[in-house]
């Protein structure tokens, strides 16, 4: 028995080692870049740590501070959720709309595709500064045109009610990434299905609803999930827009708290920076990072579990 069992165990061990060897690049990467930071973040969220002195256990102090006393957490949470719902939703709809239009037109497809895709390549900081210039309430060309045509001109990045819509406009301008993937998905829908629907007398809307959408629903799902994750990491654009509009271009020794105007552009990633690197409160920064992580996971799980309705994960 022993003589036959030993080679079997050895073979199994060898196979396990081989599997581990093949998995090791991923395992190492996962451990170093995900597991360790995640465990550390949980650990530091219960510690008082300023980056200079050794961390000391502080219990739930950081959690209470972030949820109860830190004045920017709830505005940032509201802003982030607003952006997740409105900005992501509009980007998906707009990206799909542009993709549909470009796949339908007969001439100039290449030109339009390039024109819609190019803004996506603009660096976020430069694009945001350009938008802040265009939407400047005092001297911006957009408001000049609106005023000349008698349309009330909003203060855009200088008005708490318009700052997020202005950021959404900026995001829609850079919708080229979604346009490209939607175009690919739309061109992949079998033509026979459209022909069959037409023969059955389906209207344009019905063809879109019952042929196009079910076929591209995995791509819609992909766009929504990646959009939500990107929005959870939304940092540069609101920060730059707030800075430019507030006029505080951080000179030497200038105090600058993001969120201008009136906390309307705070997002959760900005809080991580504000707490960790401006206030030296790493523990509280870790709490916000964990909230972001939990939110990302929750949104993703919610979207992936959704089986009915328009958007379905393809089987």
């Amino acid at each position, binding site marked *: 028995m022993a003589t036959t069992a030993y080679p079997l165990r050895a073979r199994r061990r060898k196979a396990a080692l081989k599997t581990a060897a093949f998995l090791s690049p991923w395992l190492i990467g996962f451990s170093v870049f995900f597991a360790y930071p995640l465990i550390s973040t949980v650990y530091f969220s219960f510690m008082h740590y300023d980056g200079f002195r050794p961390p000391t256990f502080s219990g739930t102090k950081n959690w209470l501070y972030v949820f109860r006393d830190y004045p920017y957490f709830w505005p940032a949470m509201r802003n982030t959720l607003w952006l997740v719902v409105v900005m992501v939703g509009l980007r998906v709809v707009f990206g799909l709309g542009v993709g549909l239009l470009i796949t339908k037109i007969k001439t100039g497809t290449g030109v339009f595709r390039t024109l819609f895709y190019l803004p996506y390549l603009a660096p976020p900081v430069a694009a945001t500064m350009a938008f802040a210039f265009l939407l400047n309430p*005092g001297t911006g060309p957009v408001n000049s045109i609106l005023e000349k045509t008698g349309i009330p001109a909003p203060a855009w990045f200088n008005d708490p009610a318009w700052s997020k819509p202005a950021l959404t406009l900026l995001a829609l301008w850079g919708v080229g990434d979604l346009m490209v993937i939607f175009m690919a998905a739309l061109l992949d829908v079998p033509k026979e299905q459209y022909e069959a629907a037409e023969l059955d007398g389906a209207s344009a809307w019905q063809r879109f609803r019952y042929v196009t959408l079910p076929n591209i629903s995995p791509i819609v799902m992909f766009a929504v999930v990646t959009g939500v994750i990107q929005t959870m990491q939304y940092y540069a654009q609101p920060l730059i827009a707030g800075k430019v509009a507030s006029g505080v271009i951080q000179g030497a020794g200038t*105090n600058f708290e993001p969120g201008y105007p009136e906390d309307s552009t705070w997002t959760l990633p900005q809080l991580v920076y504000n707490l960790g690197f401006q*206030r030296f409160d790493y523990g509280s920064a870790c709490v916000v990072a964990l909230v972001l992580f939990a939110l990302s*996971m929750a949104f993703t799980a919610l979207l992936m579990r959704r089986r009915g309705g328009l958007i379905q994960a393809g089987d």
Partner: protein
Amino acid sequence: MPGMSRKAAVALAASASIALFATACTGQSESGASDDASKETTINFWHGWSAPSEQKGVKELVAGFEKAHPNIHVRIVGNMTDDKVNQALRAGGDNAPDVVSSFTTNNVGKFCSSGAFVDLNPFFKKAGIDPDATFPKAMNEYTQYDGNRCTVPLLGDAYGLYYNKTAFEKAGIKSPPKTWSEFEADAKKLTVTKGDSYTQLGFMPNYHGWESTTEHIFAQWSPTYFDSSGRSNLAKDPKFAAGFTFQKKLVDELGGYKKLEKYRSGLGDEWGPKHPFHTGQVAMQIDGEWRLGMALDAKPEFEIGVAPMPVPDDQADQYGKGYITGTIAGIPATSKKQNAAWELVKYMTTDTDAVVGFSNAIHNVPSTLQALKSPKLKYDPRFKTFLEIASHPNSPTTPASVNGGVYLVTIQKFGYDYESGKATDLKAGLERTARQIDTDMAQAQ
């Protein structure tokens, strides 16, 4: 497909958070003033100056030091931001700085209380230098926290009033205002409206008006930020309420918050040649001594006047004072060459000729009492106003706090709410803001 998608999405969601978890870094302060400063050694000096003329000034300053201390060589690393400095302070290592300068005094409290910078009191004592007799009062104050002098002033900034002399003459104003009531009257006289905007604004009172921040404006009242127990004094010191009330009145009188904000949003930025004072769009501006050189470089079509900022009417005898801040220098606790580093710090911040030479090169206010009086100082006659503000015994600064400049930002945030009309109950707002400051400080301890 669904399984793969879910895994992919989970992986994506997870990786989205990775960057945010990078805050989990470690690093501890160590102290080690055991090096022999008389031996051959090389130290790293990090500073934030970036303009070519400024870099040249730093090189000349360091060259003077190396001439006086031929055994100590200095590796200069310029254009360092506070973020990079903070990272280096935590990391340590051979390439980490032995001497650091920072443009902001806001983090002094954190640097001192956390031990990130070494306490320089023993070094001063050993060198026989009395800081109280060496540095102007305000500079002496903002370089220490709770008795720990972990930084030293390395040139200073004094805030005064820049005014458009041509516009003053046109408006029939003979001299710069000395009290806030005179200032208020002049600001109104100098304001020329055009439709829903202005062709010239007397003064931009909004707290986003470049340097017209709460701490710079309120300095003229000399308020006390913290009581003896270290708690916020915001709601208790009537000088804060007076400052907020005066500014709000000025905002309303000059056209209201929205109109002023709209005008401000169309003006040039603070650090460019189109600054509204340079272009004549704003007739009076609170600013630091550096504005004079910038304004002259922009070649404005009017004569520039300089004066101290006005004071409250009941403090007329203190006219001449102004807000003081400046660049600081310190020795990181991670430095293994603290004695050699001290020699450089001592030379740069206390040697009168070195301070004067550096001030001439950088066009900042000298940071020692001797240097402020030095005949070797070269300056535009108008710059003298800033030297006098820096030497004025009543010139205030903002105190170092355990969580840096967070309390200043919190006060400023309330200022935004109050000037815009979002907050109307000043007393309740000040009390709420004071509680927030205390809570933030408790969190940092």
